[in-house]
């Protein structure tokens, strides 16, 4: 018998002993409820089981005897009411006037304890679920007489209507160069869609157009802001634009006859487009002209003003000759009107915007 067998035997014995004597095969007692009971005698139990008995049916009911026939109606006699005593009460003696109340000395209120420090308010809770009302009045678009791509709120009454928003400027007291007085201007009030009389009072669509969208992640704690870099990183779009400009700048240098320098960025093109569309008035165009797309070429002077004599229609599609003519004239008015003061274009990129082709496509303006 080697050592391993001895150890194995001892271990098995120990395990068996623990299982037998250690209570491994004992089961927990089943749970049971304890209810208090009261012992009663047999008489009490019989009395309880008898219960209240229903009363015996009543066989004889005493009914009042009807009045005997022939009895005459009782004689009625009445006496006149005595006249009420209308004796006037004696005049009451006038009451003595009240004595003036004694005014106790009013002690001045004690000075309230006022702290110079403003109370600290708990910051508002950001993520608070809000119930959307069942029915809320739909915000009606205002029937402004002007329809524009961007809604413009009603300007102040004393503000001059212009194509651009502009703050009022006055000469500063400390400034050395003379600054011209400039009136505050604002764009004319506009709405983005035509609102008919029938739609103004439309309550059928009174439900809110969208519900409050829950936030997907909590706000970052304020402490983390300190760790952010001071300079805000460039947005993706501007980074792409810069990279585009840089790439095209290299390309321009390599091409022959191509404009020098970086081309216009998307933002600069957008600014030009918005400037022209703000003057492109299609309200006076015929239905046929509103189906006509025209491509108009214009040559710009270096001060970013269109050369009126250079404006010409390159092509038209979607309408007949008369409609194309109306559409072209509206486009020409837009270019000249909004270019009268010069478009906001970078001078260093003049080669890129000397010649411009503008496509005026009124498809989205037919019914708004």
């Amino acid at each position, binding site marked *: 018998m080697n050592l391993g067998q001895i150890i194995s035997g001892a271990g098995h014995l120990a395990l068996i002993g623990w299982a037998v004597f250690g209570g491994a095969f004992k089961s927990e007692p089943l749970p049971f409820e304890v209810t208090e009971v009261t012992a009663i005698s047999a008489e009490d139990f019989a009395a309880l089981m008898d219960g209240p008995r229903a009363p015996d049916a009543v066989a004889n009911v005493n009914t009042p005897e009807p009045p005997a026939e022939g009895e005459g109606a009782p004689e009625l006699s009445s006496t006149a009411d005595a006249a009420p005593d209308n004796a006037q009460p004696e005049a009451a003696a006038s009451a003595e006037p009240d004595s003036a109340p004694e005014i106790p000395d009013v002690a001045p209120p004690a000075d309230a304890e006022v702290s110079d420090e403003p109370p600290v308010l708990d910051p508002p809770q950001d993520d608070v679920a809000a119930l959307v009302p069942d029915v809320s009045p739909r915000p009606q678009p205002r029937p402004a*007489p002007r*329809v*524009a*791509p961007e809604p413009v709120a009603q300007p102040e009454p004393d503000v001059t209507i212009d194509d651009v928003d502009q703050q009022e400027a006055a000469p500063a007291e400390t400034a050395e160069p003379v600054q011209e007085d400039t009136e505050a201007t604002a764009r004319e009030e506009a709405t983005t869609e*035509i609102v*008919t*009389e*029938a*739609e*103004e009072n439309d309550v059928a669509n009174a439900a809110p157009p969208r519900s409050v969208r829950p936030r997907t992640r909590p706000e970052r704690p304020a402490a983390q802001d300190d760790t952010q870099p001071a300079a805000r990183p460039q947005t993706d779009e501007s980074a*792409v634009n810069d*990279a*585009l400009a840089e*790439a*095209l700048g*290299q390309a*321009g240098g*390599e091409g022959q006859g*191509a*404009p020098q320098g970086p*081309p*216009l960025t998307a933002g600069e*093109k957008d600014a*030009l*487009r918005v400037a022209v*569309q*703000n*003057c*492109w*008035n*299609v*309200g*006076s*165009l*015929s*239905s*046929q*002209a509103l189906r006509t797309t025209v491509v108009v*070429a214009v040559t710009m002077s270096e001060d970013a003003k269109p050369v*009126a004599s250079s404006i010409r229609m390159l092509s038209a599609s979607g309408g007949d000759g*008369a*409609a194309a003519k*109306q559409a072209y*004239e509206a*486009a020409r*008015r*837009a270019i*000249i009107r909004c270019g009268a003061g010069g478009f906001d274009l970078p001078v260093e990129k003049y080669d*890129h915007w000397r*010649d*411009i*082709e*503008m*496509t*005026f*496509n*009124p498809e*989205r*303006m037919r*019914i708004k």
Partner: protein
Amino acid sequence: MRVFLSLVLACLVWVMPALAQNGPLRIEITEGVIEPLPFAAPDFVSDNAAGADMGRKIAEVVAADLTGTGLFREIQPDAFISRVTSFSSPVQYADWKAINAQALITGAVSVDSAGKLVVRFRLFDVFAGQELGQGLQLVGTQDGWRRIAHKVADQVYSRITGEAPYFDSRIVFVAESGPKDQRSKRLAIMDYDGANVSYLTDSASIVLAPRFSPDGERVLYTSYESGFPRIYVMNVGSVQRRVLESQDGQMSFAPRFGPDGRTVVYSVSRGGNTDLFRMDIGTGASTRLTSAPSIETAPSFSPDGTRIVFESDRSGTPQLYIMAASGGEAQRISFGQGRYGTPVWSPRGDLIAFTKQSKGRFHIGVMRTDGSEERLLTASFLDEGPTWSPNGRVIMFTRETQGAQGSASLYSVDITGRNLRQVPTTTGASDPSWSPLQE
């Protein structure tokens, strides 16, 4: 994200040299503004003393016509920098640009030796610095100065908008007076702007639903003169009238001319059933178009005369249907909630105007001829009876106010739903019918 951006940038740097701008800058404008076009209309200069006051009045009517469309805005004369003293003097474009006048209308008035009124006018595109179209001269009687002014405004309107004109047109309507329960009605005719009202009938009997012929010289209408409704046709110039053929005991109403001016469609009510008929107005021969047990009424021809839109309750509620002008199976085109009635085909042929009753209110609306793109243009206690302007751009209709003291009046609205305005009339007015453009 950074890796992705780097990859995008790398691709762009590699691709862009090939895409470098090698021509003009190209941009696309897809959104504009809708606002009235500002214009200046100085008083027309007088070439002789006879036309002294006429120049101012004609300029006023021209300006009122253009402003009334909602597409134009008049710049008041006190804002003018330049003064037009001669019809042929050069235009100071800078002065008109300064006040943002995009269009300038100048004109001259004179009376010739024959007593005729001679009006000349020119139209300028101020910002383009050039004349729009050629100058035009119009000659007419002095009494007809308003018509000449409307003609000038029509030319300006058409040259700028490209739409067909409509100012030189008339309205025939039912003039109403008296309280609702004792209202007298008679036929009246006026210019489209409410001027020059004259009456075609007296108020001895009730008249309803006058309708112009395509040439504007005759009017169909329904009268209760004989005790029950019968259709009459009247020559507007001579005020001569005659009753259209109809059998005794039949009620005929809701007549409307076909585009050929010879055919008339109308409703006949017999034994509680109402059906559509058409009649050759020259021979008096009539043809039955519908024979359903339901009520069919308010027929209106398409501009090409091949189809008829009408109102029928065959589905249980009044709806709009289209059928061939010779009759036959009809196709329902209105499917919205509410009741549809009084359909009228646009002169352009692309839209149908109608009256709709829904949720206790009345609307004037338009829809495509297949029933699509329904748009409600108005809403009130009672709007009904639309009629189209000759160019199909404006709709005129009757609006009646609520209550015992309520009255009927005429309103007009652009087909976009903008520019809702009341047409001035001296009395109550209902049932308008717009004439074609006058020659």
